[in-house]
């Protein structure tokens, strides 16, 4: 006595082909791109280059994973670039001006990242400002605060302070190890990138907390009625995002070796792009860790390849734009399944 209900019929060949393209299209493009550069550019295929590429993209990828985390609860974080930039200056200030060791700098920066995340969460969860606007505001506030703290200047070792004396501290070796160190052949930033990816994948796909984060992002009312503390999970997601943005900032600071005030400026767009590409990669249709990592790798391959081909730097942005456009077409236009990303709406229930 089954009820006369309609269950979806078997997909047609065309539908299956489309599903295949949606699922593997991005992987295929990445592989094709790699092959193309491997064939045309001999220097591309060296191990150094591969790790160099991954190291280069690590900060973007980690910030992108942060944005991805905010997306799981149906939100977005536009302050990741500013947070990373803030981290760069704060790390430099702690070591150079306050004359502290690298470990202290790292701790201070991570705490700052959590606080920025908590500020975002407060604005979104308690003050009920839409996430897009709240994090945009935070972005301005953080950038401004950073410039006030460092007097608008880049902080470098042995710089002359406004009272005429020389700055007491310098970027310590243990801090610079974050960029220059390696475990075996693998550079430290690449290890951090991988570890963060695996941890997030594990959190989101294997634990009940991950399930709850997605539930909040999919239908927050149903999640609430299922006993999930929706506001806690929102808060946790934004704090996690702030933390990851500051980790990205630490890697940038170690790479640059000084507190460049303009560091992190370009990170926001790349991070958001990577997270959005991550949604469509593998046809998953929702924020996910491996997709985001793969999106970052794709962009790294493209940028490296473009550079080797001698294309001007401004061609990179064009390339990234096209990648993002294709990703969005896959997510929203070609995918049969409903995409669960609702960037810019805290009360998402699609």
């Amino acid at each position, binding site marked *: 006595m089954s009820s006369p*209900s309609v269950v979806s019929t078997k997909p047609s060949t065309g539908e299956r082909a489309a599903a295949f393209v949606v699922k593997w299209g991005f992987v295929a493009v990445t592989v094709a791109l790699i092959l193309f550069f491997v064939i045309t550019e001999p220097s591309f295929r060296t191990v150094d280059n591969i790790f160099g590429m991954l190291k280069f993209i690590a900060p973007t990828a980690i910030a992108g994973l942060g944005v991805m985390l905010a997306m799981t609860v149906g939100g977005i974080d536009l302050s990741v670039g500013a947070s990373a930039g803030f981290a760069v200056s704060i790390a430099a200030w702690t070591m150079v001006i306050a004359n502290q060791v690298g470990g202290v700098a790292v701790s201070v920066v991570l705490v700052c990242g959590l606080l920025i995340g908590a500020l975002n969460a407060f604005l979104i969860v308690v003050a009920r400002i839409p996430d897009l606007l709240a994090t945009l505001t935070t972005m301005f506030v953080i950038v401004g605060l950073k410039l006030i703290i460092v007097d608008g200047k880049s902080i470098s070792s042995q710089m002359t302070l406004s009272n005429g004396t020389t700055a007491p501290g310098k970027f310590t070796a243990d801090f610079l190890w974050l960029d220059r160190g390696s475990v075996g052949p693998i550079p430290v930033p690449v290890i951090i990138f991988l570890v963060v990816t695996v941890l997030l994948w594990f959190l989101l796909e*294997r634990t009940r907390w991950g399930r709850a984060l997605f539930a909040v992002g999919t239908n927050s009312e149903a999640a609430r009625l299922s006993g999930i503390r929706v506001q806690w999970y929102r808060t946790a997601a934004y704090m996690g995002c702030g933390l990851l943005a500051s980790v990205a900032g630490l890697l940038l600071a170690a790479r640059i070796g000084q507190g460049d005030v303009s560091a992190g400026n370009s990170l926001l767009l790349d991070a958001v792009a990577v997270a959005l590409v991550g949604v469509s990669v593998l046809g998953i249709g929702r924020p996910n860790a491996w997709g985001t990592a793969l999106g970052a790798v794709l962009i790294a391959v493209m940028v490296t390849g473009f550079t080797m081909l001698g294309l001007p730097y401004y061609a990179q942005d064009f390339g990234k734009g096209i990648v993002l456009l294709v990703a969005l077409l896959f997510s929203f236009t070609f995918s049969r399944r409903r995409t669960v990303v609702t960037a810019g709406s805290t009360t998402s229930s699609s």
Partner: protein
Amino acid sequence: MTSLPTTPVEGHDVTVVSLVGVSVAYGSNVVLTDVGLDFRAGEITALLGANGAGKSTLIKALSGANSRYSGEIRIRGEAVHLGSPVQARQLGISAVHQKVADGIVPGLSVAENLTLDDLAQASRHPLRNRRAALADARAALATLGLDWPDAVLSQDAARLAISDAQLLVLARALRTTPQLLILDEPTSALTAAEAERLFDVLRALRASGLSIIYVSHRFGEIEALADRVVVLRDGVVQSTSERPFEWHGILHDMLGRATALDHDRGETHRGTAEAATLDGVRLFPESAPVDLAIRSGEVLGILGLIGAGKTEIAELLGGLATPLAGSLTLQGRAYAPRRPGDAIAAKVVLVPEDRQRQGILPGWSVLRNITLPFLRESSVAGLVRRRFERSRADSVIDTLSVVASGPDASIDDLSGGNQQKVVVGRWLSAGPALAILDEPFRGVDIAARREIGQRLAALAADGAAAVVLSSDVDEIFEVADRIVVLVGGQIELDRYADEVDRSTVIGAFLGQSHGASAGATASAGATPSAAAPLAPAAAPASAAAPPSALTAPASSHPTPAPDPERPSNV
């Protein structure tokens, strides 16, 4: 108060608009079937129906908001196609929708809001000046006999009181001098006095020859205002009745289902142990406290219309709200859940009313939809145990015969009835001590309803308590061992299913027993006895204070009840 310019009456009883065989289907789901109705000039037609009966679908078709109807709509005998609300207005059908706020553009002045249609028409007055707008606005208000000063006309419309906003929207609807005016629950946000003012306006409009469709759940208003009542149920016109209204029959048409679908649910079980109690709980700020005992081993059916307090009971027990007064107990101990998680931890589960909004997670698999509330239980140290989840999902799919390709099928691919089975099965899957189901059969076919009913009976047989909240008499008779009728936050009847018959239950719906105890002063001399509980219309029509008066504002019947400020059931 209002002096209305009487437009020439072209003779009452002229049919203005007729529907001939109008049907509407959303996909394979037919929501309106072969509706044939005539609306005459100078007549107020009340449209009644429970939730999902097709009222709003009918209104949408008539007002041009949904052009995908089949059948014919004729205006003064001429077949027309209503493709858009603007077109409908031009042809003489204006609608005022339920949410007044949706009809007001905040930030624009009162005058601009009154003349909003002009803004939408690019060709007219490309440059508008303030004075012309004010003049137009004054003219629009004059149709209602209103004379608002310029200071009011120039202020932000968002600052108007809700009743004035209602009048604004009404005046705007009348600007195009419609022949048919549709009002969807126009008094839901008004006080009794404001509603009274609106009724005066509507009576004057009727006198001027306008045909009005009046949608409301409030029988008092309909008794006071309408010339005839049309009842919709399941998309079909059940009955059309003229004055004097026979409310018992009307309510039966509205709530009853064809007897062919009745089925014998067998023995009535009587629970013994108290699973939960409501002690002196106020369901609404102004209602009297309620005591209710929910017993294990039986299915309790709580019957009530919108605003009766059903959802309030569900929210109290489910941890979504805290009682205004009084307290709850669970298994003999004080029970004060502060959030849904507390209720779930206490093995109290709530199947919410709105499946789409509160129940399912779109895009998720059936399995993940089922296990969401019990993640803590299905995981060890935070790690989700997949095998546990799968067996949970399989057992839900089995016991409720969910038609799906498997636990990994997307919930989106299931029919509405099967989605509902998944949601119900989800909440019953962890062996609750108390399960509350708020309108669990809405949009669900008969087979699914039976399966859910059987599942509830099994749950009760295992010693749990189940509560089904519904506005449908037949649903309640089908699933419940014990029936409680709720009217206006008060319990009107509490009996076991084998002790009452349908008409007694419907009588309780009408507030008879309560009228005997509290409303006796109002219903001059009518002291209904338990033996003859069902003669609402038998009382002289002038005794007014019509049935239920769920939230009836002051009765404004030609011969008003002694105390018009006082709803009959308080």
